[in-house]
């Protein structure tokens, strides 16, 4: 046996899923080595093996002179494998090159022939097919979503932006996982200092494995202490393309069906791309509802608590009577009652998220029964508290990003504590902290609360409560791009 093959076998000794095949065609010893789990065996037999056999046999018969024949057998003449195998990706490697192992372990077939090493791609299809987005619903938008295969994901974006200006550069990160991490941006739109910043941060990553886009996000974000997400994570290619066209940067990670988009502003989490797929004049109310929901989901329990424990004067008399008679017989102070209900809901949500779908439904019913009816008749909580928590939760569901939901949850509890201390004054104080926290957050050197602070009146007018009329939307946002005019080619 050849020394080189022994060397390979020694290195891959404990990997039982590696398949070794030795062929002898016309006296030529050929080794084919590949990983069974990653390789499509049809490709290997139909294209690799068949091509090799044909090559050697043809070579053999077509050789006219005896000398050539002898040279070939002795390995003195090259077999041009690169021209002969009917597979697109083929590479000749040096014998001393250790990257051969990573090729084998990423779905390539190694061919050892005439003391030469070739790797041929014959990846099996391990990724699922493109399906509908799971977490981000869309009424009128495209129904495709990213999958775990980065090549497919790039394709989904390129399918939408067919421009040579859409740059994509890829690097392998992770000493063990060697994950493909791709950086995507439109070259003449994006701000280049941002690209340089991200590239430098990506260079500096030293980690053994990248499993999700969030691994990358935590490396390249500059202030990780903020409660609010400073980059958008989406599973929709149309959203990704929308942000790319604005001049944002997209990071794709192999094996993760999500794209990381940066920078992000607070309004991005409230706004939705679906607004652009619907009639403009109705967008105002939709957006207004979302902003009201944001306030409701943060403040409702705190507001209720301060009303019934501090500022009873502010409630209409009939409502106060109704509150009082509902609270009659509840043994806990209102604050404890609120904490119990919010905790119960959070437990329900967490278990619903983690459990499998079959028991999840059962859990929901049990949870709804406990929260809705049994707790009230047992006298642990008052019905009005259930309304309050339900309102809070339902308003919170208008947001899609899990990070923003969690951030708002944290602030909801902070607001509750402040209001339990000093009522409406407490809410005012907590609001100050909330706004301060929002304003202090920066997303990759850009202000998180743009366009409200720093105020960009024109953008604020469009982004916060309405949207631009698409035919008149000819400019890009200054904060994201230096190339302000959208190119409009005339027919």
């Amino acid at each position, binding site marked *: 046996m050849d020394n080189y093959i022994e060397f390979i076998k020694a290195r891959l000794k404990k990997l039982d899923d590696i398949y070794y095949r030795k062929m002898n065609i016309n006296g030529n010893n050929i080794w084919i080595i590949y990983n069974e789990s990653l390789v499509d065996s049809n490709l290997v037999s139909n294209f690799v093996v068949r091509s090799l056999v044909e090559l050697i046999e043809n070579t053999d018969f077509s050789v006219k002179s005896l000398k050539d024949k002898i040279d070939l057998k002795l390995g003195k003449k090259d077999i041009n494998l690169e021209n002969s195998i009917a597979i697109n990706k083929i590479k000749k490697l040096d014998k001393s090159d250790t990257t051969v192992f990573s090729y084998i372990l990423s779905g390539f077939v190694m061919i050892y022939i005439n003391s030469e090493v070739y790797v041929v791609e014959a990846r099996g299809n391990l990724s699922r097919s493109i399906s509908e987005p799971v977490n981000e619903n869309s009424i009128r938008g495209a129904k495709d979503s990213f999958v775990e295969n980065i090549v497919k994901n790039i394709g989904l974006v390129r399918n939408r932006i067919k421009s040579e200006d859409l740059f994509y550069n890829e690097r392998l990160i992770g000493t063990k996982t060697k994950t493909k991490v791709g950086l995507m941006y439109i070259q003449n739109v994006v701000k280049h200092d941002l690209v340089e910043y991200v590239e430098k941060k990506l260079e500096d990553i030293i980690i053994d494995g990248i499993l999700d886009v969030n691994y990358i996000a935590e490396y390249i974000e500059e202030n990780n202490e903020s409660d609010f997400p400073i980059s958008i994570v989406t599973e929709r290619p149309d959203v990704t393309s929308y942000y790319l066209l604005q001049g944002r940067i997209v990071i794709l990670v192999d094996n993760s069906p999500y794209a990381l988009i940066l920078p992000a502003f607070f309004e991005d989490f409230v706004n939705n791309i679906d607004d652009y797929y619907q009639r403009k004049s109705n967008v105002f109310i939709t957006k207004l509802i979302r902003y009201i929901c944001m306030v409701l989901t943060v403040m409702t329990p705190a507001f209720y608590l301060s009303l*019934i*424990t*501090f500022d*009873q*004067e502010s409630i209409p*008399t009939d409502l*106060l*009577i109704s*509150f*009082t*008679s509902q*609270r*009659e017989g*509840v043994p806990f*102070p*209102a604050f404890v009652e609120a904490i119990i209900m919010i905790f119960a809901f959070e437990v329900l949500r967490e278990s619903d998220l983690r459990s499998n779908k079959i028991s999840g439904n059962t859990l929901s019913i049990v949870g709804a029964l406990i929260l809705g009816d049994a707790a009230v008749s047992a006298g642990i909580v008052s019905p009005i508290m259930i309304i309050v928590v339900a309102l809070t939760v339902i308003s919170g569901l208008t947001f899609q990003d899990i990070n923003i939901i969690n951030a708002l949850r944290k602030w909801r509890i*902070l607001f509750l*504590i*402040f209001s339990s*201390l*000093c*009522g409406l*004054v*407490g809410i005012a*104080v907590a609001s100050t*902290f909330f706004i301060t926290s929002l304003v202090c957050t920066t997303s990759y050197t850009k202000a998180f609360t743009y366009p409200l602070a720093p105020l960009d009146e024109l953008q604020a007018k469009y982004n916060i409560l309405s949207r631009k009329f698409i035919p008149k939307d000819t400019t890009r946002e200054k904060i994201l791009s230096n190339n302000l005019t959208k190119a409009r080619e005339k027919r």
Partner: protein
Amino acid sequence: MKRYILTFIVIVLYFGGLNSVRELGDLAIVKAVSIDLNDEGKYEISAIIIDTKEKENKDKGLLISSVGNSVHEAARNMVDVSSKKLYIAHMESLIISEKIAREDLENTLDFFIRDNEGSNSFFLFIAKDAKAKECLEKINEEEIDLVPFLKSTQKYKGNANIKSLNDVVKILLEKGRSLCVNTISLEDNIKINNMAYFKNYEMIGYLSENESITYNLVINEVDNILESVGEENSLVIVEIVEPKTKVNVKDCNVNIDVKGVAHITQTGKNITLDNIQEKENIEIMINNKIRDEIYSLFDNKRKEEVDIFGIGNLLYRKKNILYNNENYLNNINLLVNVDIDIVNTGGIKKAW
């Protein structure tokens, strides 16, 4: 995290003083209060407490009462009969007896004005010809809501106005203005009666129904009023909708201008309403009638030295020379100008 702990401590230290937690279960929500002055000179306070325990007959409240040497003392003595703290911020009405109105209104209202808990947006009533407590008992028994009752009386009849305690106190403190307060009387049932009028802090007497309406018309507190002229076959009844009154003072002349539109709601047999002359005659009759009523109300009260329309206050505001004259009521010249337009006959037949 340190930051949050620090701010939390700061909040507790600095805002702890604002802490006035009141659990709902600890409050006795008071709906209405009555105050009587008994013969021994002691105050008797009664209060309807809204019963928040869940049961069938929910509207009926709990009536408790206590006695004390002052209003505050009597209110304190409520502790003897109620396990919870009385909470008066949602109080709707305060009923005081006629005796208090005649003798000691100032000290009685003082308690409510000084208390920082109440919003003082409740309505003040004087119990006419009955003990205030009896009225309160009746209100509790019959489950009467005085506030909508008062509002509909003000809106459709005009012999009551909706001035809250704050407004009443404001009028009481203003110079040259006489206070009029709504009254209730206890006949078979509770009835919102005509208004009582005050001079300084003391109640003098009651206005008649027409006088009450006229008073409210002049101070711009009526929404719509009925007015009738003529008798039997030539009877005309009109509804005056949202009349507006302006009072102007110039030197010693006081002008009261009433303007408004009216609909004819009922006519006698002789009224045909087929020519414009007839309509104008009716207008003149109505204008004259209202004018006479204003004149007579003013003159009657002038005799008792009561400035019912608050003209003294106007003089004071305009820095009129007459105000310093104690006898200013006798020196002014009242001119009333009423201009009511009939815009609608309301009949089936075609009119003028």
